[in-house]
C-alpha cells in the first residue's frame, strides 16, 4: 500500500498544473456540457479540446498510431484529477473519447480506426450516442430502430431519444436492429452514422432545468455504407456491452464528487443559522460528516480501481457500483446544499438573490437526471445482483 506517486509522476502532475494555469479558459467560460446551443460555444469548446490535445493530455492511453500517447493509466488519471481540480470545462468530444473510441480500438477494422480515431481526439468530429428509444429505455435491448442491408448499404428507419449533443454532432454510434426474428439481444448491430446523412431529423428536448442538451433523432430511410458496421453483424449488443465495461474514469468521477463536496462545505461556512455559520450547527456537522464518509470511500475506491486497472485485474461489476454510488451521492450532496440555502435554495441563476449563481438547485435536478440516465439506479442494482451476486434474473413472462 502506497498512496504516493513515483517522482516522475509528481513531476508530470506539476507540469499539467502549470499548463492548466496558463491555458485554462477564464471562469464563466460557458463551456458547460449542456450549454452547447450556441454554435460559437461549440466552436470554443472544440478549440479547448484541440488545445488540450495539442498539449498531449487527451486520451493518453490510446495507441500512438491513432493519435494517442500509449501512456499508462496512472498518467491519464493524473490528468483527469488535475482537470477536475482546476474546474476545467468538460471535453466536448467526451462521447467519442470515452465510448466509441475504445470500442473502435477493440472491435473496429483497421480502416475504421485510421478513419475515425484521430478526428475524435482533435474534436474535428464530434460523436453522439444512439442507444435509447422511446420504447427502449431501461429495456435497451428491445430497441426497434431497423437497419436493412440493401446492397452494400444499410437503410435505417426509426427513432432515438435522449441523444445528448445530437444537435451539433458529426457522427452517431448507434445500436440498430438488423435481425427482427432473432432473440432480442442477438439481432442488434453497432453502426456508425453520419449525422449529415439525408433523412435524419434532430429535435431538441428541453430538460426540466430549462436547458437543452437532449434530442430526439428520427431516421427515415437513412443510407449507411456497410463499412460503417463495427464488429460482426448482429453482434452489436456484445460490442456495446464491452464498451460499458471500459474504464469509466472512476477517478475523474470521484474527484468531481470531492469538488462538489468541497463546494458544499464552503457553502456551509457561508450560510448562517441563528446568526452563526451553519457549519457550526451540530445537525449540519452530522450531515456533512456522513457525506464526507461516503465521499472519501468513493475516493479511495477509485484509487483501488485505478490500481486494479494498472495491475490488469478484472473489473467485474464495478462500473455499476460506481455509477450507482456516485450519482446517488452527488444528488445527496446537492440536497444538503438546498437545505443549507433554505428559502434561497430555489432562486434561479437569473435572480440577484441566488447564491452560487443558482447552481445548486440546477445541480439538484441535474444529478437526479444522472441517476435516471445511462441506466437507472434500479438497472444498476439488477446488474450488481444478477452478475455480481448471481441472483436469478426476472423469470420470463408467461404469454397471456
Amino acid at each position, binding site marked *: 500500500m502506497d498512496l504516493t506517486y513515483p517522482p516522475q509522476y509528481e513531476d508530470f502532475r506539476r507540469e499539467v498544473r502549470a499548463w492548466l494555469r496558463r491555458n485554462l479558459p477564464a471562469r464563466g467560460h460557458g463551456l458547460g456540457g449542456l450549454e452547447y446551443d450556441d454554435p460559437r460555444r461549440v466552436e470554443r469548446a472544440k478549440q479547448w479540446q484541440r488545445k488540450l490535445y495539442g498539449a498531449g493530455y487527451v486520451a493518453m492511453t490510446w495507441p500512438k498510431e491513432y493519435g494517442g500517447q500509449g501512456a499508462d493509466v496512472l498518467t491519464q488519471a493524473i490528468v483527469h484529477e488535475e482537470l477536475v481540480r482546476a474546474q476545467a470545462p468538460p471535453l466536448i468530444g467526451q462521447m467519442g473519447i470515452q465510448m466509441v473510441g475504445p470500442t473502435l480500438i477493440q472491435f473496429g477494422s483497421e480502416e475504421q480506426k485510421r478513419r475515425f480515431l484521430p478526428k475524435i481526439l482533435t474534436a474535428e468530429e464530434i460523436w453522439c450516442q444512439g442507444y*435509447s428509444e422511446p*420504447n*427502449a*429505455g*431501461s*429495456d435497451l435491448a*428491445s430497441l426497434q430502430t431497423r437497419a436493412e442491408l440493401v446492397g452494400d448499404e444499410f437503410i435505417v428507419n426509426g427513432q432515438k*431519444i*435522449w441523444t445528448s449533443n445530437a444537435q451539433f454532432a458529426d457522427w452517431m454510434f448507434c445500436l440498430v436492429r438488423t435481425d427482427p426474428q432473432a432473440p432480442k439481444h442477438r439481432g442488434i448491430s453497432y453502426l456508425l452514422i453520419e449525422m449529415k446523412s439525408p433523412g435524419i431529423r434532430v429535435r431538441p*428536448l*428541453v*430538460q*426540466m432545468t*430549462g436547458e437543452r442538451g*437532449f434530442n430526439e433523432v428520427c431516421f427515415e430511410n437513412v443510407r449507411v455504407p456497410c463499412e460503417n458496421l463495427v464488429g460482426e453483424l448482429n453482434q452489436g449488443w456484445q460490442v456495446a456491452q464491452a464498451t460499458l465495461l471500459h474504464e469509466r474514469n472512476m477517478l475523474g468521477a470521484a474527484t468531481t464528487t470531492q469538488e462538489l463536496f468541497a463546494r458544499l462545505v464552503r457553502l456551509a461556512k457561508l450560510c448562517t443559522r441563528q446568526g452563526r455559520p451553519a457549519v457550526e450547527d451540530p*445537525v449540519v456537522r452530522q450531515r456533512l460528516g456522513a457525506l464526507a464518509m461516503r465521499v472519501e470511500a468513493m475516493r479511495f475506491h477509485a484509487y483501488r480501481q485505478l490500481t486494479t486497472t494498472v495491475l490488469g485485474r478484472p473489473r467485474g461489476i464495478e462500473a455499476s457500483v460506481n455509477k450507482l454510488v456516485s450519482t446517488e451521492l452527488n444528488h445527496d450532496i446537492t440536497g444538503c446544499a*438546498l*437545505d443549507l440555502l*433554505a*428559502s*434561497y*435554495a*430555489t*432562486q*434561479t441563476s*437569473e*435572480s*440577484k*438573490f*441566488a447564491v452560487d449563481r443558482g447552481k445548486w*438547485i440546477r445541480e*439538484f*435536478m441535474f444529478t*437526479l*437526471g444522472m*441517476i*435516471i*440516465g445511462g441506466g*437507472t*439506479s*434500479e438497472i444498476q*442494482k439488477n446488474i450488481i445482483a444478477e452478475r455480481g451476486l448471481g441472483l436469478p434474473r*426476472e423469470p420470463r*413472462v408467461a404469454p397471456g
Partner: protein
Amino acid sequence: MNFALSPEQELLQRGARDFLAHQWPAAAAHTVFHPDHDGYPRKLYENMAQLGWLGLLAPVEFGGVGGTCLDAALLAEELGRAAVPGPYLANTLSILVLRQIGAASVRRQWLPLLAKGAAVLTLAWFEENAFAWPFRPQTRGSIGRFGLRLNGTKRFVLDAHVADGLLVVCTIPVRQTRLTAIALVPKDRRGVTIHPMNDVDRTRRPCEVVLEDVIVPRRSVIAIGSQAEKLLARLQNAAAVFLAADCLGGAERLLEMAVEYAKVRYQFGRPIGSFQAVKHRCAEMVAQIEPARSLLWYAAHAVDALPRHATYAASLAKGHLSEVFSQVAENALRVLGGIGFTWEHDLHIWFKRAQWNRFAFGSPEWHRERVAQECRW
C-alpha cells in the same frame, strides 16, 4: 369524536377538484413558465372569486363565506394538486389579518375587494433571513409630521408585483421601546420598489420590496404591539397549515402521475408497475401520504379550535408534509425516468413546487426544532 370532514367540506373539496381539473389543467400550469407570464391568471381568479374561494375566510358581512382554516386547507390542497399560481395565499393571509383588526374602515374598504378578487393584498413580512422565526423586523417606522415613514427591505413578499397594497411588518418607536406593527401601504406609494425574486417554481412569485422613506398616514398602522404579535403568530400557523395542505395536494398529483405511467409504460414485456422497484416505490408514497392527510386535518382543526395546540400541530404538519412532498417528488421522477425529466412533461411543475414548499414558511428542520420546543423537550 368525529374525525371526518363534514358533507359540506367534502363537497367543497370535490367541487374544487372538478373545477380545477377543467379550469386549470396541467397545460395551463405550463403557461406560467413562459417568461412573459406574470404568474397571475386573472380569468381563473375571477371564477375562483365567483365560487367564493377568495373570500372563503372573509366574514360574511364583507362578502365572504366565513369559513374555517380547515375549509381553507381543503381548498389549498386542491390548489396544490392543480399547481395554481397567483396571489391566493397572499390574499388569504391578508384576509386573516384584516378580519382580526379593529380598524373598521380598513376592513370595510379591503375585505369586500379581496373577497371578490378585485384587489390583491400581500404581507411584506420577512426580510433577509427569510422564513426564520422568531422574527424581529429590521424595517423601521417612525412617526413624523407627515405621518408614518417606513424604511427597510422586505423579502419573500408573495406576488408583490401584482399587489395593490402591502401589509408591512415593521417596528415603531413607542416611548423607550420599539413595538412590532403592521402598516397598510398602497403599492404605488413613492419609495416602494419591487424586485422579482426569480424562483425555479414559476407558480410562485416572491418579490423583494424595498421601502425608502415611504410615507403613509398614521392610521395606516392597523395593528401594533402584542396585538400585532399575536396576530402574526396565528398567521404563521395558518400559513404553515396552508402550505402543508398544498404539499398534500401536490404529492397526490405526483403519485397519480407515477401510477398512471407505471401502468402504461412497458419495458421487458411488462408494465413497469409490475416490477417491485416501481411498485413498492408507489406503495411507499401511499403509506406516506395517507397518514399525513390525517395529520393535516388535525393541524387545520387545531388552528381553528385548539389554540393551545395550534403551534405544535402546525409545525408537525408543515414539517412532515413538506418532507413527504419532496420525497414523493423525487420518487415520482424516479418512476417516470427520462420523460419526467423533460420540460414538456407536467412533472417538473410539481417537482419545483415541492422544492419551494419545502422551505417556505419554515423548513422541515426548523419545524422539527419548533416541535421540540413546543413539547418543552
